[in-house]
């Protein structure tokens, strides 16, 4: 293959990738800013026929934007925070324990295999009884997300702790530090990167989850079921505006995460 041909192929391939990434996002933007009376136009143009922010304004006026957004943020923050706080000590213990370390890792892997619907249906029944389902704060949903994020966080933290040299912990122990002190002052600072990666992965899971949210937050939805609802029963332009709002934090998180992945090759290890 000549140089020129291979260069053209590369350019074409990259253009294709960029298009596959950006065109759909553009279509969402286009749909979100198109005025309602023009949104049914056929054939639709690539550029919006006119630009308006009425979709966002209507969402704000009818209080359909801020609340689902804040609820999504809160649920993601609570489930991720809870998961990471529990996963680091557990991951460290699984990395160091002789008798149950392997079993714990296997258990976390099995937990990853369960489909969300098999957990959310029975969990919802209990949450309803406890009065925790469908709360405006989304606290019940945060618990459901913890059931999925915690096993993943444990796997990440175990992998990170296994890579730590034992000598540091032993030195701290000889100096008289207890387990919790070693965890806080030796293990945590050394595994900050992995803990951060686990938190970002957990945040993305919670942010994107549809199944648990649909079952548990019936009338106080997070963004994904809210978008599905508006797309089905409301204006497509409003659904697109909601989708854009949902895109922003996820994109920011992915940008940070991809940097971590590229610099450390961590994803291969995490996913293994």
């Amino acid at each position, binding site marked *: 293959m000549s140089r020129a041909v291979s260069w053209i192929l*590369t350019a074409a391939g990259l253009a294709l990738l960029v298009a596959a*990434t950006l065109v759909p996002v553009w279509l969402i933007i286009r749909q979100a800013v198109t005025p309602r009376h023009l949104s049914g136009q056929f054939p639709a143009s690539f550029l919006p026929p006119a630009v308006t922010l009425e979709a966002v304004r209507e969402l704000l006026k009818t209080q359909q934007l801020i609340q689902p957004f804040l609820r999504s943020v809160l649920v993601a923050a609570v489930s991720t925070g809870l998961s990471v706080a529990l996963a680091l000590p557990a991951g460290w213990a699984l990395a160091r324990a002789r008798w149950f370390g392997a079993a714990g890792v296997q258990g976390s892997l099995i937990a990853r295999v369960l489909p969300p619907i*098999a957990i959310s249906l029975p969990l919802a029944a209990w949450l309803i009884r406890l009065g925790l389902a469908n709360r405006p704060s989304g606290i019940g949903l945060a618990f459901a997300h*913890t059931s999925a994020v915690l096993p993943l966080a444990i796997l990440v933290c175990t992998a990170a702790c296994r890579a730590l040299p034992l000598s540091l912990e032993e030195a701290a122990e000889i100096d008289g530090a207890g387990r919790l002190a070693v965890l806080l002052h030796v293990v945590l600072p050394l595994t900050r990167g992995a803990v951060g990666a686990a938190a970002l992965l957990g945040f993305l899971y919670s942010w994107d989850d549809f199944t648990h949210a649909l079952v548990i937050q019936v009338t106080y939805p997070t963004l994904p079921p809210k978008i*599905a609802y508006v*797309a089905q029963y409301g204006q497509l332009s409003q659904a697109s505006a909601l989708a854009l709002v949902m895109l922003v934090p996820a994109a920011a998180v*992915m940008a940070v995460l*991809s940097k971590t992945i590229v610099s450390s*090759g961590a994803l*291969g290890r995490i996913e293994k």
Partner: protein
Amino acid sequence: MALSRAARRELGWLALAAPAALTLLALLAAPLAQAFVVALRPDGAWCLDSFRYVLRDPLFHRALWLNLVVPTVSLALEAVLGLALALWLWRLTRGRVLTMKLLFREHGYLNSALAHLDVSPILWLRPGSPLSTGVIIAVDVWRVTPIVFLLVLVALEQIDRSLLEAVRLDGGGVWAEVRHVQIPLAMPMLGIAVTLRAIDAFRIFATPYVLMGIEGFPVVTSYAYHRWADRTDPSTANAAALLLAAAIAGVTALGVAIVRRRGAES
């Protein structure tokens, strides 16, 4: 009875792991056990009626069929496309780290944009059209290929350069490098990627639910949700969800076995 030092250490580790373990017991194991109870005791007596009902329900048959077709075809396409993309870009970009960074960020956007994407552009397609299965598969492939691509690219990066040089010294061209070094050595990672993806692919729900509705394009998760929400029949809903869980467990076990055997052979 005095415990040995080792046993005391082990108890200490157990104490550290206990909060997470108890949380998972409460949030995962207990609901799963509850699902069995609900499915097996529809009217206060133990029986298999719910499973029998689900297995005879025509809507479940459609859901099961589509739930098989979509993951199988899209996994195959993702594996081929992911491998091809990774091989291609690995070969054609010299400043790999920089390009990877750019590409991953785009793929990152692409990846997270997916869920939102379900909403607007493809909704224009008519539900119930013969193309609908293809559309759902295409969306799934578009969404997931970057993940497979990323994993395969990591695998290609880890291949020892001296192997490639050995092929070149033997007079082999680019194609020989691809066929005899890169594809065989990337295979284990592709196996892992496909197994991971299979776990997620069989949970397919949001894409067909949003695009075509439960009756328009049923899959097993939406069937279970339908029995639960629209028919208020938790028993059959849990039975369907458990059947899905069993199927995914089987597929995962199969994938792990294949990856292990391949790993042992090489």
